[in-house]
């Protein structure tokens, strides 16, 4: 790599040729503040709109200050990052940004986790020197995401995530000047738009312009109601990230402490979504093997590749953008919904609790799960299978509000029967995990032979699109993996064009899979955090005695006692679903 010499504040540094001042400074440990720039290295996502102007620096020989994010380093460049002129300019820019920003920090949902707030603190803002016109946009509340555009600072990170990374196209910059705002087409509500609720806009928003719909209060109310049996399920990716909210290093597994905290909060039973993930493998795996066998026997009507269906952001995506292909994904419901369906039938029966007296709460790394639970098909007589979904961030808030000292909790175990799970289930939380779990089971069922090495390194990693051929004892099975909806789109277009050679494809809407979900602790642009969470999930898998879904004794018992066999009529009724065409149809008339 070619390098050049530069000076920052009279110190010599060697930096790679072609880097911007901002990136160069970061690489040598010099901090230049910014509010709009974002670079997720490991995911190759760059957003540099040169919009906030916080990152201005002095460059010797140039009259004006330059934005560090958009100025390339040149050999011998002398940069000044700490002169009074630079510091004052940054402060003025920040004061101008604050001039039309609501000052309700104390009661703001992002209080304590807001980039704008911490920057105001770091820069020592103590007065509002400018008070400008205030915007008064209508707050938009969907099933999962709240838009409060009065708090938008125009960084447009959300626009990059929505359009370039996810290719969803729900959000765009509209109008100009002071009236400029990020909104869906025709300023319609998110619910009417093509939004998939993947929550990647929320994950990168520096302020409270985009936040999750908060259900903590309602959950507290139900926990306090003695007539209700409140049970909780926790998704795999939560345990690998929740600790960050309590000061643990990224990638610290807090499974036991999380379980203990939920018990202290008063949940009657603490279960694991991983149980339902194992169940998903049984249903989805059986479906895959059925399609595969028919295909290998020459049945031309069979639809391949099978696409995974556990990610509700992804489900919405194909319903909006690829409705013509809605019979290709697996019909298996997501683990969250399988859990709800089993809890309110099998478990309710076992516990002797009436359906309406059972409240099912999910802890999810995801915002789309909030929307998923609200879908009509997941309710019986108006009673939803899953009553409330809390994000990882909301759970952390709940624990703090309850005054629980998380760090000093003694680890606890999940309750039975829906708390038992395999290592295959825990890796559902990362890109590549669902398909690895499926392969572990499908291989053994297909070949009727024992799998000796359960880890498939070739399916792991963080590359956007990965592929691998797994030898099913002489039958090559082609697997595709995509994370991030923009990459899913590429694979879908291949299928549509008849060019796809895969037998099965795993798709997760969020970068990294659920570990990078829209409900996770904010990564503030540091993609190393996602890698650490991924590592943690693989570590938990390794620590498990049972590592294949079909060997989970509670799952075997569930089929024996209640469901019969995978893909049985009862299983279909409770654990499968169908998809809808949600494309925005324009009626074309004759006249």
């Amino acid at each position, binding site marked *: 790599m070619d390098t050049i010499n530069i000076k920052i504040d009279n110190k010599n540094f060697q930096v790679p040729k072609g880097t911007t001042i901002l990136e160069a400074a970061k690489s040598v440990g010099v901090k230049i503040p910014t509010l709009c720039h974002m670079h997720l290295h490991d995911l190759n996502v760059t957003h540099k709109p040169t919009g906030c102007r916080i990152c201005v620096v002095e460059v010797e020989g140039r009259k004006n200050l330059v934005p560090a994010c958009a100025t390339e380093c040149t050999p011998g460049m002398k940069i000044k990052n700490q002169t009074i002129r630079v510091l004052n300019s940054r402060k003025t820019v920040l004061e101008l940004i604050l001039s039309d920003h609501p000052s309700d920090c104390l009661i703001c949902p992002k209080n304590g986790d807001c980039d704008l707030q911490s920057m105001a603190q770091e820069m020592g803002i103590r007065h509002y020197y400018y008070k400008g016109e205030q915007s008064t946009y209508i707050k938009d509340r969907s099933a999962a995401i709240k838009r409060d555009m009065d708090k938008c600072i125009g960084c447009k990170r959300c626009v990059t995530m929505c*359009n370039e990374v996810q290719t*969803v*196209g*729900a*959000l*765009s*910059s*509209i*109008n*100009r000047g002071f009236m400029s705002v990020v*909104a*869906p*087409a*025709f300023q319609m509500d998110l619910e009417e*738009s*093509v939004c998939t609720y993947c929550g990647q806009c929320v994950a990168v928003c520096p302020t409270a312009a985009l936040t999750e719909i908060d259900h903590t209060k309602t959950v507290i109310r139900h926990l306090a109601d003695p007539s209700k049996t409140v049970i909780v399920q926790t998704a795999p990716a939560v345990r690998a990230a929740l600790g960050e909210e309590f000061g643990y290093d990224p990638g610290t597994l807090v499974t036991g402490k999380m379980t203990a905290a939920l018990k202290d909060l008063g949940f009657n039973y603490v279960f694991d979504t991983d149980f339902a993930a194992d169940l998903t493998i049984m249903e989805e795996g059986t479906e895959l093997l059925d399609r595969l066998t028919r295909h290998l026997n020459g049945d031309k009507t069979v639809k391949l590749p099978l696409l995974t269906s556990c990610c509700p952001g992804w489900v919405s995506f194909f319903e909006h953008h690829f409705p013509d292909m809605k019979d290709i994904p697996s019909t298996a419901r997501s683990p969250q919904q399988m859990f709800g369906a089993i809890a309110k039938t099998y478990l309710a029966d076992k516990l002797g609790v009436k359906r309406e007296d059972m409240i099912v709460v999910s802890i999810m790394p995801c915002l789309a799960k909030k929307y998923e639970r609200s879908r009509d098909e997941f309710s019986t007589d108006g009673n939803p299978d899953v009553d409330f979904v809390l994000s990882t961030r909301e759970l952390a808030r709940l624990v703090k509000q309850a005054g629980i000292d998380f760090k000093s909790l003694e680890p606890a175990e999940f309750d039975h029967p829906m708390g038992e799970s395999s290592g295959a289930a825990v890796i559902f939380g990362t890109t590549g995990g669902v398909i690895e779990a499926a392969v572990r089971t499908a291989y053994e069922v297909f070949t009727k032979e024992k799998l000796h090495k359960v880890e498939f390194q070739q399916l792991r990693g963080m590359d956007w699109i990965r592929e691998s051929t797994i030898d099913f004892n002489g039958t090559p099975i082609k697997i595709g993996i995509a994370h991030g909806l923009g990459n899913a789109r590429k694979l879908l277009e291949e299928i549509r064009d008849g060019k796809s050679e895969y037998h099965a494809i795993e798709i997760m809407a969020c970068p990294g899979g659920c570990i990078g979900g829209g409900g996770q602790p904010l990564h503030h642009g540091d993609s190393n955090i996602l890698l650490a969470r991924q590592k943690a999930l693989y570590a938990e898998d390794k620590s498990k005695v049972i590592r294949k879904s079909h060997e989970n004794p509670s799952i075997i018992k569930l089929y024996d006692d209640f469901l019969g066999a995978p893909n049985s009529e009862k299983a279909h009724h409770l654990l499968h679903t169908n998809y809808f065409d949600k494309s*925005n*149809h*324009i*009626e*074309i*008339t*004759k*006249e």
Partner: protein
Amino acid sequence: MMTICENNVAKIEAICSEFGNEKGELINVLHKAQTTFGYLPEEVQSIVAENLNTSLAHVYGVVTFYSFFTMVPKGKYPINICTGTACYVRGAEKILDEFKEHLNIKVGETTKDEKFSLSSLRCVGACGLAPVVLVGEKVYGRVTLDGVEEILKEYNE
């Protein structure tokens, strides 16, 4: 649900393909579509988005960014007041207010009888004549407050 007649769909498709269905030609496509339809209603934007393989939000973003584009039908006599720097310092805002008062509409609106619509634009390149008003293609220079009524009179007869 939005509706549009197949004739108009064909017209939009023709415009889009004239520009190679290229995303990058969005502004040109919208320009031509507005010339054809007089304005850019939601249906037209939807068909454009579909044909150029871009999002509706993006099309709407471009339509709302440029003051030239309009989502409401223009009046028979579209009035444009230049509020570019030269016109602005020579009182364009007051001229604009005078038009608003006479027509009882805001910028971007059309009178109930669909006769006049009011827009502002930035610089028509006739700064020497500031403040400048356009009615349709006709240019009025050095417009005074009293001149507003006279201009309107021309079209009210």
